[in-house]
């Protein structure tokens, strides 16, 4: 009798847990299908123009913010690492430590977060607005596949832009480290670049490249998905639902970047 009561008191909890788990699994499945379909539609005709346009918006227009953040990240790294390495008398390896930190870790992660904030939020807001003003329905009625026309170019452009912007971030970051380490703190210029050349190899660069590709897929898919299905939100309608979708897209993207960074790193190690 007692166990029955206990069982029944736990039932709502398990019901709640089961429901939440099912929701998460359903959503993950929906996102996976959404990405697969959109990815396949990248290779349909009449996509080149749209993709180039998105590369301009996501890639070229994000380069300023990436340069700025990359420069200061490199400068801070130069300062902090000089201080730490100085304790061990190893300031000569500053170049390689700055470069490896940027190429393997900070470059892909910070670039992805920067693009999420700048272009990812714009993707969600734009697609969400198109959705609530029936423009996505209008595309459908004109026999233009909305996913092909709106989502696929964003995913393709992200896959192209993320690695390029990450490379730019890394390069500018290394120059930032040079500014503080060599120009301000007097580390030997030759040693700075020699250590980079000696310790950074293709495996490190490939790792950073793989991460940026993974982040590109995750960020673009999450941001487009949030905008595309903004009308299905149950917590709000209209413009409010677009703003909530944009917030969710940025938060989910940043969290996913950090989680997937750990997962990918553990695979690459």
């Amino acid at each position: 009798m007692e166990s029955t009561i206990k069982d029944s008191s736990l039932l709502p909890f398990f019901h709640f847990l089961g429901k939440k788990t099912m929701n998460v699994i359903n959503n993950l499945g929906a996102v996976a299908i959404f990405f697969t379909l959109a990815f396949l539609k990248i290779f349909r005709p009449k996509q080149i123009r749209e993709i180039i346009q998105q590369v301009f918006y996501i890639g070229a227009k994000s380069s300023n913010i990436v340069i700025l953040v990359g420069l200061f990240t490199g400068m801070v790294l130069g300062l902090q690492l000089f201080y730490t390495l100085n304790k061990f008398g190893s300031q000569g390896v500053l170049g390689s430590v700055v470069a490896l930190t940027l190429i393997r870790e900070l470059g892909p992660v910070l670039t992805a977060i920067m693009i999420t904030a700048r272009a990812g939020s714009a993707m969600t807001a734009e697609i969400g607005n198109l959705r609530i003003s029936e423009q996505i329905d209008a595309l459908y009625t004109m026999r233009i596949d909305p996913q092909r026309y709106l989502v696929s170019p964003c995913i393709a452009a992200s896959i192209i832009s993320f690695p390029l912007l990450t490379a730019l971030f890394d390069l500018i970051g290394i120059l930032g480290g040079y500014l503080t380490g060599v120009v301000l703190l007097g580390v030997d210029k030759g040693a700075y670049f020699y250590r980079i050349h000696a310790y950074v190899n293709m495996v490190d660069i490939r790792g950073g490249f793989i991460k940026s590709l993974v982040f590109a897929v995750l960020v673009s898919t999450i941001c487009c998905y949030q905008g595309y299905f903004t009308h299905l939100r149950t917590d709000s309608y209209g413009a409010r639902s677009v703003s909530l979708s944009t917030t969710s897209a940025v938060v989910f993207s940043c969290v996913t970047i950090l989680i997937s960074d750990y997962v990918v790193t553990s695979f690459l190690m």
Partner: protein
Amino acid sequence: METPLIEFRGITKRFAGKTILDKADLSIYENQITTIIGKSGSGKSVLIKHIIGLLSPDEGSILFRGKPVHEMKKREWEGYRSQISYMFQNNALFDSMTVFENIALPLRQTTNLKKKEIEKKVMSRIEQMELTDATRKYPAELSGGMQKRVALARALVTDPAIVLFDEPTTSQDPIRRNIILSMIAHYRKKFGFTAVLISHDIPDVFFISDRILLLWEGKIAFNGSYEEFARLKHPMIDEFLMSIEGLRDELTGLLSKEMFKSRYAMTLGSGRADTIVTAVLFSFNLNFLSDLFRPQVAIEILKSMGENLNNYFGPLGGFSSRHSREEILTILPHLGIEKATELVNDFAQRLEKESLPEIQELIRDKIEAGECFEIFVNAGITEGSSSDEIEQIMKSADMNKKRIAKYLCGKERDSK
């Protein structure tokens, strides 16, 4: 019997447990204008969204030329959809694209036409819709009426076989509303598409419709011609018309049809069957002028005719209402046919001498140099008694129709 182009069989649609369409049956025939009327929120948009596949029914089936659309293969379904265009209630124009880009979008994305061909086609639609000055503007820079015309141009640019118009005249003034409806009727005739229209613009929309469907509590409560609709005496139709029709026709200032009926009953139906009444059925060659030139000319003439009739016969106790796109029925109570004929002749003289030249001035900027046309005014006069039905009087007046005035209207070419 003719197979309907599109047929709904027992379509049911529910949203969050609420039944919007309840086993709705309807037929849409080829090359006709079918108008769906019904109260706001009765599910008219839901109904037409099923036609293009934006919504799918919970129960029932939709047939295209007798074939259920849900049984169509992908290619067949795409072929079916390629024949349909949809004009949204809120226009659904792309804010970040110019007028030209908005209209060109379906051609750029779904056809293999060359750039020049697309440009030619788009520019021709832009000119037809009188949007030339707005070609490079963004939708946000346009008035509501212009945005509507851009949406209409976009809907027609692919030369569709079926066009679905979801309240194409909302947020328009009476003249613009009539122009849009006339444009739909004109292009339907010119391009031969089938139009399905949702509209509240009574009576204007009736005059261009071949078929009326009344959606009432989720079901098609009436399906037939305007004449049948007007003849049908049913509390539901009366309730609907009373709820939607104003006291006066906004375009002409004449009485609305419902008001006309009650005025007729009130003025003449006081129990005395011997009250004399003379009815005059005026008609104008407006459809011809609309097709020959552009709807604006015909609408301006109609508007002016309405005002003239009101001003002349109103002080004499007469009252008028539009009974078709180019016919106005005027009732002159307590007047015999001889006196009424005298008045009509006097009115005709005034029309020829004063009003029609004024109309020419009104439409001067709407016609081009060298364009010339004739306005004909016909009138059929009949005498009846207050116990006669309006339809009976109209029929009799129609049989007596003869020309009472004409005017050669035009704009001379620049002598240089």
